[in-house]
């Protein structure tokens, strides 16, 4: 099952690669439409748009998913319902494809909702309470985006068709288009976990690791970015994109800081994903959709690889995800460590790894644009933070002392996993340069003073140094964090965002329904309908039975008395 799926997905990705090259070379766009129903001059259309962007993205998605499926053959080998798992992953990929290829809002909703539903199924795959809660958080956060898409579908009815791609330039100043663009931005922000909605992304780490690799690299979280790339023409230089710029910059910043407080291996990686998503969103909202797309693709590669390495490590460490237990892994598992290192360094943009090409270009374009100091600070500080948590993670896992139990067996010869990782290793090595040569055949002109140019290196060096220092911190120094307990709490809990979207939101409704239950269901309505009525009847019955306790003589006598009284009445008349 795994192999068949792997094979087909891999072949699909190769076909997509060929088509991408062909389409890109000839600058082709193919659009197919199937009119499902047409009424009242509105036509509901299933449309497919094939251009180089969708083909390239599909190629990456199917490549990563094929590798992930291959990987999960080993990772999920002891799983009872492996077929179900694979089918869920395939459905996930399919809905992502639906999202990618369709420029129609209704048919996008198909993929969009499919992603939400299947991601829920995948997050709750380990059926326990933690994953249930995480899945519910994920599903409901994504549900907000679904609702926004639905609402924008309703607004789109003004135009008689849902093929948004035709209206982007034409209807830009229309009022309903402004409403639509605000809703689309909100939808994309939920999917891509931007700041008010970002709590679900680390929570979704309850999913099996291959799923995390798939979800957080190329599929679920990038759907929002991809949607905004498609809607880019509409919102360029609008107020919405300015807000999005601030929010996504803050997301990047917040995720970078929170990752430094985190000790869970998968959560660190998830938060780094969040930070990279913030980067993509912010560069997108500054008006560089191509750069965002470029970073999306390279990021997909090394992030999938990173998650897969994490999966291998978790497997080896007897399901322990805490990085404080790890250490010295580079000596035990060199191949996995190699992959982990390359992907990690690619993440923080070490030159000539794939992350470098996209990230460096983004940062330089940021420096080129006229921005205020705050956004500039957010960008560069987050870059430093990326370096910070990457080095911290590296030292914790690779260099420091090994802290697990004394009897252990770390082995690096699970070739199913390793082979699949090597595919991605290769891709995360070359994809940056490859794509930059392919996509940007007209180079960006960048002209910067030397210190601004070297700013990236400065912040990276400082971040790396900090990461190194913090990873060697002793327990005595750690305890000093207690002085800033509230600050640490604030920063490590993602700026209290999980509280905002879970407890802080539903406490009012839960309280209200508790009061309702207490006062109505178990209170007044019980008192006045069920139990109360029964009590009344019962008391009457008890009262009535009191009459039954008389002597038999009295009954008979009372009968006679009654008759005599009536007889007297008769005689009186």
């Amino acid at each position, binding site marked *: 099952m795994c192999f068949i799926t792997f094979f087909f997905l891999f072949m699909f990705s190769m076909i997509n690669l060929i088509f991408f090259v062909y389409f890109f070379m000839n600058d082709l766009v193919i659009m197919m439409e199937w009119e499902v129903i047409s009424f009242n001059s509105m036509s509901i259309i299933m449309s497919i748009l094939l251009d180089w962007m969708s083909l390239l993205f599909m190629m990456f998605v199917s490549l990563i998913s094929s590798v992930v499926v291959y990987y999960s053959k080993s990772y999920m080998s002891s799983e009872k319902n492996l077929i179900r798992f694979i089918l869920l992953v395939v459905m996930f990929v399919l809905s992502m494809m639906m999202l990618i290829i369709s420029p129609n809002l209704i048919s996008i909703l198909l993929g969009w909702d499919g992603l939400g539903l299947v991601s829920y199924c995948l997050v709750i795959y380990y059926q326990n309470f933690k994953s249930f809660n995480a899945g519910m958080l994920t599903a409901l956060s994504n549900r907000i985006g679904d609702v926004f898409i639905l609402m924008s579908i309703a607004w789109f009815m003004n135009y008689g068709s849902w093929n948004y791609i035709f209206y982007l330039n034409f209807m830009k100043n229309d009022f309903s288009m402004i409403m639509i663009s605000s809703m689309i931005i909100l939808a994309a922000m939920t999917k891509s976990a931007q700041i008010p909605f970002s709590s679900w992304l680390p929570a979704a780490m309850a999913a099996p690791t291959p799923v995390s690799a798939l979800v957080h690299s190329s599929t679920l979280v990038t759907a929002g970015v991809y949607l905004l790339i498609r809607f880019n023409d509409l919102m360029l230089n609008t107020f919405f994109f300015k807000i999005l710029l601030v929010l996504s910059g803050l997301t990047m910043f917040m995720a970078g800081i929170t990752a430094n407080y985190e000790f869970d291996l998968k959560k660190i990686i998830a938060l780094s994903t969040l930070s990279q998503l913030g980067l993509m969103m912010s560069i997108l909202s500054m008006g560089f959709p191509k750069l965002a797309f470029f970073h999306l693709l390279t990021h997909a590669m090394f992030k999938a690889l990173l998650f897969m390495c994490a999966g291998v490590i978790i497997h080896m460490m007897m399901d322990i995800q805490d990085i404080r237990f790890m250490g010295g892994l580079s000596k035990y598992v060199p191949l996995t460590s190699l992959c982990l290192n390359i992907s990690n360094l690619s993440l923080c943009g070490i030159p000539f790894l794939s992350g470098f090409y996209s990230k460096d270009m983004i940062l330089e374009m940021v420096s080129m644009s006229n921005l205020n100091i705050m956004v500039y600070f957010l960008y560069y500080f987050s870059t430093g933070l990326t370096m910070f948590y990457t080095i911290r993670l590296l030292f914790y896992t690779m260099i420091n002392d090994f802290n697990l139990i004394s009897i252990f067996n770390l082995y690096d010869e699970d070739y199913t996993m390793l082979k699949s990782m090597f595919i991605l290793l290769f891709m995360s090595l070359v994809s940056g340069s490859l794509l930059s040569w392919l996509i940007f055949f007209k180079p960006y002109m960048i002209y910067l003073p030397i210190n601004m140019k070297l700013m990236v290196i400065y912040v990276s060096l400082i971040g790396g140094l900090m990461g190194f220092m913090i990873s060697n911190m002793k327990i005595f120094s750690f305890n000093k964090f207690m002085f800033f307990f509230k600050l640490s709490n604030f920063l490590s809990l993602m700026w209290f965002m999980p509280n905002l979207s879970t407890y802080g939101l539903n406490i009012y409704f839960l309280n209200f329904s508790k009061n309702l239950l207490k006062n109505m269901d178990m209170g007044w309505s019980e008192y006045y309908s069920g139990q109360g009525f029964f009590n009344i009847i019962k008391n009457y019955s008890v009262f*009535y039975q009191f009459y039954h306790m008389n002597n038999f003589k009295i009954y008979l006598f009372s009968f006679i008395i009654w008759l005599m009284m009536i007889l007297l009445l008769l005689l009186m008349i």
Partner: protein
Amino acid sequence: MNYNFNTNKMFFYFILFFSTMISISSNSWLGCWIGLEINLLSFIPLISNVNNLLMTEASLKYFLVQSIASINLLFFILMKMFFLKNFEFNKIYMILLNLPLLMKMGSAPFHFWFPNIMEGLSWLNCFILMTWQKITPMILLSYYFFNNFLIFIMIMNSIIGALGGINQISLRKLMAFSSINNLSWMIASIMISENMWLMYFLIYSLINLLMCMMFFMLNIFYINQMFFSNIKLIIKLTMMFNLLSLGGLPPFLGFFPKWMIINYLIINKFFILTFIFIMMSLIMLFFYIRMTYSSFILNYIKLKWFKIKMKNSFFSLFNIIYIFSMLGLPLSTLLFYF
């Protein structure tokens, strides 16, 4: 079911049935009275049992109550003959003549003997007391029916039947109160027409027969016996359906006559009466359900070595009637089809 075939009892049953015939077919009040007396005298030997003190007591109570009612009936008949001309109506005479009859059938203000005596009878005698013994007074009541007075009696019957039953654990008393409640429907039906009464009475007796036979065969006298004894689920289920039918829940036969009565009462604008009837039969249904439903759903300690054996041949005789009792309402629609 080793019930000895007693020829003496056959004789008394015969007299019991024919005395009823005498009173409901006679064309003078004295004849009616004679029928009632014969009925009383034939029922006493049926219920009295030398070996059982309770039964003897019940027979004595029955005798006292009925004889006082009969004396008064006779007295008022004679008084009416003496003071009133033929076909002359007087409301107070009507009340006076109705009261002993109400006493005889165990209707509300004079019903106190009824649960007491039921407590001392066997189930078959209970059945006769609840159904057959009510024919005569009911028919006689219809001869001299005082609406305005009897509507109060109906309401009283309905409420007392419901309230009395809710706190009972003795099944015989429960059935007695259920009978009191049904009496209100019967009086209402006889107010409307005799055919309606006949239908109500027949269906009520049918369901009551089934219930009494069931309790008789299972030898159950108290509610907790339903939980203790190992009754088969199917029998419990039939019992429950029959009880619901008795309470008048729609898919069953018992709803049919009640439906008709409600219909006619509303046509004749007895809205309050209908309301009270329906509400009180709701309470009736509540304790019918409480009898059986909790024995389904609750887990009780059961006696392991106490098995109830029922003769299948005898039981299967009733099956057809059970089916009629449960599916009677849909079947009865065939009547209107032709």
